[in-house]
């Protein structure tokens, strides 16, 4: 109920802000008088006036659709922004999954070493009722209808095996010989004078232990850092949010003409909206290739090839703008693109290798 009221208020603020800024205000034929009349009619058990004629029904449906679409888009954008910035792990009021989900994933609240931009995963050691020990990466926790844990699913699961050296000396030596640096099916764990413990990979992608079979569970937060430099972490977030906003603006602009630019036809406006996020993607890829210092140091030839390919493709992506902004006719732009693609094909690094 609270969310519905908040969405209605948010919708009102969005429309009001938009109307104050845009030369083409959005107007709904249903106003406050109609809404209050609806509540009075419901109280008096009469059919509301907004449902009396087909025209009024259409106006009502338009308003409801607009509210739902704004709510959907707002929810999607906020969900993505919270994910990109990792805010759900910092602020409990932004959490939208169950408590177990947040307990079993690293955050500032449960892991002091948690830092922004590093990779975290949860290593889980599970003992079942038969005192068999399994370990793996936590994939999912399943819940029953009452919200209690029903099963725990591991990814890349291993089973611990213990061998007594005194009882099976040959087996211990045989298993040691089977260890390899080229596959992770058998891994050593520990060794004492009398016992030898190793882990054997359980075949399959996922391994599930059900709650009834669960004895205890040990959780370890594994942190993998130095994967990206700070600059790369920030640029990823900036680009992700920029692409999200660009995609949203393009979608809305394709449906509703804000009259930002006087396109000569709806088709050109829609093409502009489809092409612009793609153009942003290619700019992002070109900049990523340009600032790839690691590639520059290791393989300068590949660095120049990546840069060259990115630049050529960016120009290719920009050619349709000649039609969108009325520079050339559509058939001439298609010819230009065909000729450019033919010439460019000889300069692309992938074609050169062939």
């Amino acid at each position: 109920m609270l969310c519905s009221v908040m969405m209605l208020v948010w919708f009102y603020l969005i429309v009001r802000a938009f109307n104050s800024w845009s030369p083409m205000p959005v107007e709904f034929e249903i106003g406050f008088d109609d809404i209050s009349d609806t509540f009075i009619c419901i109280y008096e058990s009469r059919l509301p006036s907004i449902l009396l004629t087909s025209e009024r029904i259409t106006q009502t449906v338009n308003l409801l659709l607009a509210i739902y679409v704004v709510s959907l888009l707002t929810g999607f954008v906020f969900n993505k922004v919270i994910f990109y910035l990792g805010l759900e792990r910092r602020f409990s009021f932004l959490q939208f999954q169950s408590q177990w989900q947040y307990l079993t994933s690293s955050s500032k609240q449960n892991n002091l070493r948690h830092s922004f931009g590093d990779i975290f995963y949860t290593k889980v050691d599970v003992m079942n009722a038969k005192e068999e020990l399994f370990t793996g990466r936590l994939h999912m926790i399943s819940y029953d209808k009452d919200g209690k844990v029903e099963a725990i699913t591991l990814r890349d699961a291993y089973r611990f095996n213990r061998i007594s050296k005194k009882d099976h000396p040959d087996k211990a030596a045989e298993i040691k010989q089977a260890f390899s640096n080229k596959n992770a099916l058998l891994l050593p764990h520990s060794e004492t004078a009398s016992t030898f413990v190793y882990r054997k990979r359980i075949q399959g992608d996922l391994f599930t232990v059900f709650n009834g079979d669960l004895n205890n569970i040990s959780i370890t937060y594994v942190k993998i850092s130095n994967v990206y430099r700070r600059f790369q972490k920030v640029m990823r977030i900036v680009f992700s949010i920029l692409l999200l906003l660009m995609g949203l603006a393009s979608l809305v602009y394709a449906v509703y003409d804000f009259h930002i630019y006087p396109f000569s036809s709806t088709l050109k406006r829609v093409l502009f909206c489809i092409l612009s996020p793609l153009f942003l993607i290619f700019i992002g890829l070109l900049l990523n290739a340009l600032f790839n210092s690691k590639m520059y140091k290791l393989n300068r030839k590949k660095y120049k090839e990546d840069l060259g390919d990115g630049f050529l493709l960016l120009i290719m992506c920009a050619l349709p703008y000649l039609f969108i902004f009325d520079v050339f006719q559509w058939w001439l732009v298609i010819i230009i693109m065909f000729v450019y693609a033919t010439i460019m094909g000889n300069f692309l690094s992938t074609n050169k290798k062939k």
Partner: protein
Amino acid sequence: MKSISKPFHFVADAFKDVFATFGLIFKLANSVKDIMVRTDEENLEKLLKTPEDQVKFQKALDEAIKDSSAKEVILNGRNVRISA
């Protein structure tokens, strides 16, 4: 015959170049995920592509847990630090 086949080959090569170009555009557009924020699972899958990297990772993790200290290891060409 030579005079007929030459333009034909030219047009065929031209179409081949055009398809190669659009194929590369599509492939590069798909690679946009490499420069966006991804989930920890996706990042980990990218880091542990080869079986050799998976073995190195498991061994480094075991040592990090045993010694309660961070271990450095090269995975997928990146020098990363693992701690638990």
